[in-house]
């Protein structure tokens, strides 16, 4: 009888050690090993990332001129003074008189979402802001055509939204002159 009691007590102690000490210990070790594996993968990824970033940085530094061009096309700021100068140069360079110019900021995100719904745009330009520009110029049709071509190939991208023109009702010598109202959009990020 005594022997049986002792065996039961000993088995209870054994089971207690296994359940309370060994098993939690094994679980802890497995958890740490899992964490180590995670860190090991992370280190590998980060090393690769650092190496790729280094390569990218070298490429970035060697293409500074091209990168500058990207920001001429799509500047980081509104650059309104530059726009005014550009329009003046574009008009006078093509034989037009710039009579009126207005520039307003317009939120682009909402509009592009709408456009995306209408499937006219393939991606949403979330980061892009738009400037709405209205200008009035006077000159001949041929001058205006030349102005349009120059504007279309301008470094800073602008998209005309509407064009409205009528013949100038004044002196005979000005009969070839037309009044052009143009609405366009310029972008920045």
């Amino acid at each position: 009888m005594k022997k049986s009691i002792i065996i039961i007590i000993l088995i209870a102690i054994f089971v207690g050690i296994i359940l309370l000490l060994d098993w939690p210990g094994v679980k802890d070790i497995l958890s740490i090993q899992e964490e180590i594996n995670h860190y090991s993968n992370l280190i590998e990824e980060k090393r690769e990332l650092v190496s790729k970033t280094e390569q990218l940085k070298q490429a970035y530094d060697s293409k500074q001129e091209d990168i500058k061009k990207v920001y001429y096309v799509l500047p980081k700021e509104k650059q309104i003074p530059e726009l005014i100068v550009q329009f003046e140069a574009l008009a006078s360079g093509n034989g037009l008189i710039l009579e009126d110019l207005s520039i307003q900021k317009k939120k682009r995100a909402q509009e592009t979402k709408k456009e995306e719904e209408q499937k006219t745009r393939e991606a949403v330009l979330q980061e892009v802001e738009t400037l709405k520009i209205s200008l009035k110029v006077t000159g001949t049709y041929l001058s205006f055509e030349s102005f349009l071509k120059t504007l279309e190939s301008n470094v800073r991208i602008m998209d005309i939204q509407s064009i409205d023109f009528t013949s100038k009702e004044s002196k005979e010598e000005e009969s070839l002159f037309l009044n052009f109202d143009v609405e366009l959009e310029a972008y920045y990020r």
Partner: protein
Amino acid sequence: MSDEISLIPGEYKGKKRIISTLISKWSVLVIILIMLSLLIYGGLIFYKKELEKDLSSFQDVVDELNKKRDKDFEERAMSLDGALKDLKVILKNHVYWSDLFSKLETLTVPEVVFLEFDSALEKDGSIKTELKGQTAGYTYLAKQIRSFEQEQVISGVEIEKISLGTEGGIEFNMTVIFEKDVLLKE
């Protein structure tokens, strides 16, 4: 002479008898197992400490690699990436109105003169163009309408008003709808 000769002292024999009455062979086996499990526990503690050291050194390496990151450059690169993506979309949708005028010039009948032009990009991408023109007679106007209708990039032509002009000939107002493709380039 039935007594056995024993070299084990009598006291010891008594203790052994007490132990053997309390502990069986199974008990010994369980005690060995207990000792083994304690030994395993000790091993686990030792191994856990070693792993914790390894983990700590791995964390240090990660911290070190994080310090090596050039966050300023990463931001610049991300910004450039975003700009290029946006630029791709903008360029794809860049409109060339000079192409519309070229098309209009080729489609205009020589006897027709347009005096007013009002054109705008619609939400669906098409271009609604309202024209006010002048011509010598109805036949030329009919030719003009036919010329527009036969063009593939024009999806609609509507005549709103036709009237006799103050200086002879006729004056008219028409609306021409151009397909969005006319302003886009490949």
